[in-house]
């Protein structure tokens, strides 16, 4: 039981740290979104994760899966934009996948994949569509490769965060094919995708806090 609460504690740290990072980067994310979207991604993520922190302040959780599912539901209700159902679904499915399992690096990797599966089911994106999946896809692969090579959670999350950052940077020359940015067509070229950017912030935060 004490182990469990230590895990709850580190996942709580991750959510709080992510909220802080998203808050600090809200203006930056909104600026990215204003170039190719409706200029609300930073404000939406800040509002959503701010609400998650408020929940963390009020509620204590026995298990990681309850914690993540509650975070997911909060994001679904509070973010407002498309990233609400997307990140919300991610945390809901991530949480569901972790219910009752031992939190080994491999299990967490499967959980992440389940969460990202939810993002794909929701958003129907593919690699190269200039979406957050351009960061998630390479991150999952890098994570699995690290775990298969015997790496611990810290190594796997670090590898995932680095791959995510590369994926994020690779969105710059792409033409958007999903979401509001796709209305811009060619004019979306040359801008970094805000969703891939916030994904990278979340994974970098995970690498700092979860291991």
């Amino acid at each position, binding site marked *: 039981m004490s182990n469990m609460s230590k895990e709850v504690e580190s996942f709580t740290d991750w959510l709080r740290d992510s909220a802080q990072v998203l808050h600090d980067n809200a203006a930056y994310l909104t600026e990215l979104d204003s170039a190719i979207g409706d200029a609300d991604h930073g404000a939406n993520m800040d509002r959503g994760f701010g609400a998650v922190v408020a929940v963390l302040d009020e509620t204590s959780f026995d298990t990681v899966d309850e914690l993540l599912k509650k975070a997911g539901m909060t994001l679904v*209700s509070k973010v407002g934009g*498309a990233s*609400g159902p997307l990140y919300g679904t991610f945390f809901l499915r991530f949480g569901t996948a972790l219910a009752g399992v031992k939190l080994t690096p491999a299990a967490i990797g499967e959980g992440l994949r389940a969460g990202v599966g939810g993002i794909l089911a929701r*958003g129907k994106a593919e690699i190269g569509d200039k979406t957050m999946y351009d960061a998630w896809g390479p991150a999952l692969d890098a994570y699995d490769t690290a775990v298969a090579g015997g790496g611990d959670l810290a190594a796997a999350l670090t590898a995932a965060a680095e791959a995510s950052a590369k994926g994020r940077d690779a969105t710059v020359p792409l033409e958007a094919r999903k979401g509001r940015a796709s209305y811009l067509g060619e004019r979306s070229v040359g801008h970094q995708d805000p969703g891939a950017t916030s994904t990278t912030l979340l994974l970098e935060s995970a690498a700092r806090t979860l291991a």
Partner: protein
Amino acid sequence: MIGIVVVSHSHALATAAVGLASEMVADGNRPAIVVAAGLDETTFGTDAVAVSEAIAAADSADGVLVLLDLGSAVLSAELALEFIDSEVAQRVRLTSAPLVEGLIAAVVTASTGASLDAVAAEAERGLAGKQEHLGDGPAAEPVAAVESGQSLEVVVSNQHGLHARPAARLVGLVNTFDARVTVTDVDTDHGPVDAGSLSMVATLNAIRGHLLRFAAEGPEAEAALAAIQDLATENFGDDEPARFPARLGAAEGDHGGSGLDVAFGPAVLASGLVDVSGYVAGDNESARLEAAVEAVAEELRRLRDASPDLAGIFEAQLALLTDRQQLKEIREVLVRGASAVNVWQLVFDRLAERFEQLHDAYQRERAQDVRAVRDRVLRHLTGTTEDSPIEIEADQPAILVVPELDAATAAMLDGQRFAGVAVRAAGATGHGVIVARSRGIPLITGIGDVDVPAGAIVAFDNRKGSFEIEPDVEQVRATIAERVAEQEEAATEAELPAVTIDGRTVAVLVNVGTVQDALAVRGAEGSGLVRTELLFGGRRTAPTVAEQVEAFRAVAAALPGKPITIRTWDVGGDKPLPFLPLDHEDNPFLGERGLRAFRRRPELLRDQLEAVRQIAAEIPVHVMFPMVTTADEVAWALDELGPRPDGLKVGIMIEVPAAALRVATLTADLDFVSIGTNDLTQYVTATDRTNPAVAALADGLDPAVLQLVDHVVRNAGVPVGVCGDLASNPQAAVILAALGVHELSAIAPQVPLVKARLRQADLRLIDTAAVLAARDGDQVRALL
């Protein structure tokens, strides 16, 4: 009955869409419609949890149809299905139907008890009517004609044809019978279409006067046709709302705009003075005044909120009314026993005087606001809350006779009570006159000091320039009937191009002072004049580039795909701009007007040109500079404009006789010129059109003016337009076309009439040589 859920980013959008759709069916038949929109009432966003709750609230055994806007609305709605009971989720349908049109179709169809499949199919076809009208959609699917059944023919008698609401009544009725009913518009040979489908009935576009043929088969076919007959007799349930001017027959269009130019009724004289002779001061004058001020403030707030275009005027009046320092001083006098009426009048008279002595033209005009506020409060104090000093017969709209017409009075004039306005002062371009015209209120100016007995029947005809006391009412009625008929015909054909009998096509555009003008107009082929100084006239500070782009975008959106001609700030003379204070001039009409006002201070013009360049990238835009006299001025203006974006056409206004005479030297680098006939007339005839003593000399049809128009057409080397009042006068429009003018820009209510008159004209029959050689304007009119 199925339930309906509306998911949108915006709470206001969803609520408004539901309001619009709910109007279509009676309370008792309406399906449950639940909104899940916005994170709260003002924050845009969607919430999957809220959507799932909305579905639960709207759920019924027959199922739930979910209409959505875009992006996260779709994602959140899909996610919501994961949150609800899987048994409920089975009977929920998310539809890609257009939100507004789909919702209306869904609500109407659902109200008849149709199945989820049927309602969803109707919602998905929601665009069919619009696509059919605009001709940009897939062809409507043909319906098998009812062959063996019975049929019925009825004529559409509704003012606006079988539009959405009456169509919904028809569809609702048809679906209550066990019968298959089709309908055909015999006049257009559209159909047969399913009379039980709102979207299909909408594709008929059946307008007033069209013959509809209904055919029905099935067990209740006969009953269905009988019910349709009854519904048709009562205009398909349309209450014909009384429109302005109620007495003169309903005006076409929902935005006012009678264009009749003729009216009669008992004269109501407004001297501008409130009769305060019967007022007796009481014990608590302070409280009385406070109540009156509060009542007036409430009125002004209501007026401000009701007319965004004019909000600035009422905001300014509110500020005058509720000036704390002033109210405090007045109260201090009142507690010493003075009469509220006397003190209020004295204070505001003094204030008006102070404004009138100011050099700045805009500030001087504020005296009118001071007097308006003074009088509104005095009326409340004396209990004469009517806008006019005498009682009016309840069922006879009157003619308001006023010395001057300010914009506020024009905006507030009760269209039910007044058939028209006769203004003693001359001048067709004051703000009050422009507001009245844009509301379509029949109006005549310059009747002078003629002695009008209060209550006497008076009539005027602005086209003839006549004002009569105790006229032959039957004859006036006949004229009105003629104009109404002419107008209905013109409105029906408003969208047709203006091609004369001899085959000349004349472009007819609209003058725009407010976005409302652009929204209200029918048949305009763009805007030939966007009066930017009016678009931002209520503001104390200059609009930013972005605000101007936004305003131009709004005008353009009202005239989709058509060019708009932005006239740069036209200030000075009788058009003050609050954010460009001008020095006092002894002869303002001969001073720093129009483009001239910016030679010394080009900053405001530069901002405006930046806005023009930006909007030119999005929509077809022309820009023109007012009050140009010399080629140097043209060169300077073009230099300020800088490199022209592709497609931006540049022109000047021809208002100065010198510019008209040497137009050939001005147009080398221009794409068009537009003649401002009002100013050209006053400069050519050396007549102040606002001075009643001489205003009659300022006749736009004076052959001297027409000779200059002719000269400009022959020598400009570029297309020539006319955007002055002359272009709004159907009779004059024909002469202008005969002289070779390519483009006319008229006020919104006149556009269909000008086009109709041009279509009836054979320009070969107009002896232009005789027109140009005529002795005066009257002789020109006699020649037609």
